[in-house]
């Protein structure tokens, strides 16, 4: 038998507000019930309280985020430090940002006009000539065949970094700088005398023998490191005058005001446009080694960053997902009470955000400590090539924001899942 009330002609009426109409003791504390959305304070309160319910889960979540940041910060800083060191050695204290060479032949015969024009380009910091001639260096029975490089002794920028002794002085026709590794091979120290033979040209003016070879006894003024460990440097003015063309150069090295390869390429393009007889290449285009290194660093950054993100996203997503599953009944209760889906989403999302923010801050402190350790104990330190972490605001902030965004992303799926719980299905089950 069916229970049938007399509702056949039921016509709905607008609902009244019994809260306002009630006269019981609750009326004494009843305010306006007109609020539509949940107060943010309530949602934050629920998120915070729920987060504190399971201490182990909270600790694991915070650890996952903190470890992600704590690894990512020194990893990124060390890779940036490696790139900086490479740039320092190969560019700033190497062959500069743009290398200008003659399109045909071995050298420019007169670089005066070209130097003056390039120096006037707005993004150029310095432009210097080098003259490289084949030669031999001898000391105490040791003999090494190499290129002898003439550099402008008065210039601010050099293709080397002096590590011991003194620099060459302009017009110094008795001094030489040796690469540290070469000096070690020869057993030479600052103040020692070495013999150098240079193949000057087929048309020498100051030849010391009939074969156009210059023989010199030079004093070691200093030692140089970085990319010039096996090189020999003499004064460009002296060497050029020995060839008979005292304004000649094998190349012009251009130092830009920025390490940005786009700036270097712009300079190179301008030079090639204005001097058709010259080729100009940016540091990245001139060196396959540098190109490989920069590419490798970028790849390592991406791989390490991706691993860190997966290291964060998987545990955070798993733990929050399990938490959302575990709380289905509580979510259903909230739904039955009258919380909206987006409010339930917000509660769970805020939990993820709180975990993210606290975890990121903890990770940043740990990362800062690890950076300090690597700064004192570099991950690589061999023959003046030292990789120290590049401690910059960006290298700290970027991993923090990335992991925070990842945590928020990882938290949004469980939050969405929680918001979509069917309260009727869940509440039907006795737990």
């Amino acid at each position, binding site marked *: *038998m*069916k*229970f*049938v*009330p*007399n*509702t056949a002609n*039921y016509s*709905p*009426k*607008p*609902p*009244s*507000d*019994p*809260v306002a*109409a*009630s006269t*019981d*003791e*609750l009326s004494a*504390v*009843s*305010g*306006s*019930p007109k*609020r*539509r959305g*949940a*107060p943010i*304070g*309530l949602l934050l*309160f*629920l998120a915070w*309280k*729920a987060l*504190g*319910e399971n201490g182990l889960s909270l600790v694991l979540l915070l650890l996952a985020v903190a470890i992600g940041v704590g690894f990512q910060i020194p990893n990124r800083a060390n890779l940036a430090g490696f790139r900086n060191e490479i740039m320092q050695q190969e560019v700033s204290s190497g062959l500069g940002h743009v290398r200008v060479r003659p399109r045909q032949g071995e050298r420019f015969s007169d670089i005066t006009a070209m130097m003056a024009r390039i120096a006037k380009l707005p993004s150029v910091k310095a432009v210097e000539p080098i003259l490289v001639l084949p030669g031999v260096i001898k000391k105490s029975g040791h003999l090494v065949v190499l290129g002898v490089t003439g550099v402008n002794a008065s210039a601010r920028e050099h293709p080397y970094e002096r590590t011991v002794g003194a620099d060459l002085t302009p017009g110094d026709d008795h001094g030489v700088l040796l690469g540290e590794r070469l000096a070690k091979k020869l057993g030479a120290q600052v103040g020692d005398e070495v013999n150098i033979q240079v193949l000057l040209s087929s048309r020498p003016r100051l030849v010391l023998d009939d074969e156009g070879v210059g023989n010199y006894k030079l004093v070691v003024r200093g030692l140089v490191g970085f990319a010039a460990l096996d090189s020999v440097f003499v004064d460009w003015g002296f060497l050029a005058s020995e060839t008979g063309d005292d304004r000649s150069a094998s190349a012009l090295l251009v130092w830009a005001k920025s390490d940005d390869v786009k700036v270097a390429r712009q300079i190179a393009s301008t030079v090639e446009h204005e001097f058709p007889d010259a080729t100009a290449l940016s540091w990245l285009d001139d060196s396959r080694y540098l190109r490989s290194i920069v590419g490798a660093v970028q790849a390592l950054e991406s791989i390490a960053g991706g691993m860190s993100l997966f290291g964060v996203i998987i545990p955070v997503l798993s733990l929050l997902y399990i938490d959302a599953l575990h709380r289905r*009944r*509580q979510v259903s*209760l909230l*739904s*039955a*009470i*009258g*919380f*909206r*889906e987006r409010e339930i989403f917000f509660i769970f999302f805020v939990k993820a955000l709180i975990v993210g923010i606290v975890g990121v801050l903890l990770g940043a402190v740990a990362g800062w400590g690890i950076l300090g350790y690597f700064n004192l104990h570099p991950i690589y330190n061999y023959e003046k090539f030292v990789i120290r972490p590049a401690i910059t605001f960006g290298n700290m902030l970027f991993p923090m924001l990335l992991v925070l965004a990842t945590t928020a992303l990882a938290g949004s799926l469980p939050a969405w899942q929680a918001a979509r719980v069917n*309260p*009727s299905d869940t*509440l*039907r089950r*006795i*737990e």
Partner: protein
Amino acid sequence: MSSGPVLVANGLVRLRGDKAIIAGASLTLEPGDSVAIMGPSGCGKTTLLHLLGILDRPSAGTVFVEGVDPWSTGRDARAALRLRRIGFVFQQSNLMPFLSARDNVSLPAWRLRGDRREALARADILLERFGLGARSRAPGGELSLGEAQRVATARALVNRPALILADEPTGSLDSSATEAVLNSFDEIVREGTTLVVATHDARVASRMHQIVHMHDGAIGAAPEPPTEPLMGGTNAAGSALVRRPTP
């Protein structure tokens, strides 16, 4: 309080797959009515409560809560209707275990009114009324089952709803806790709130004004003849309804 019926359900059907969990239930509830829905496990009592409380959508039929068809509105409107007009008491796991008793009770009021202090004041009044003033700061997870049910009842009442839906509210309680919960229900009904209780317990049913028996999703006849003829009222059409003397 509305002058019309609190709830009108007509021809409710709820299908799960091919099976009808609820097969054509109709019901009209006036302010101050108390109804016990009885029947064996799986007969559809809980499903019916969820349909009446707009937690679940009927496959066919209509529900009006104080004249509003909730399924013609959006999710937010249904949530608002539950918040303002309907209170739920479930059998167990009724509370947020990480919140104190007073926080649990105040939750709907804080959500509705946006004022935590006012919500807590309302919660304190209700907890005192249910004899739980001394336990108001105990976490929900540490309350006894009887205490938790009374806290859940207080929470259901805190926004002064028109309708309370209780699903086996005494199912896991001992006799003294059951009595405490039933006393609180008596008070609710005396104040004009409509109460629907799904129960196996004849003692609980005996405290309600009306008893409805369910079988295989249908509201059916009482297993025993009525002890008192149904007198007047809007629910006079069915012989399944047993009207009890008001306690």
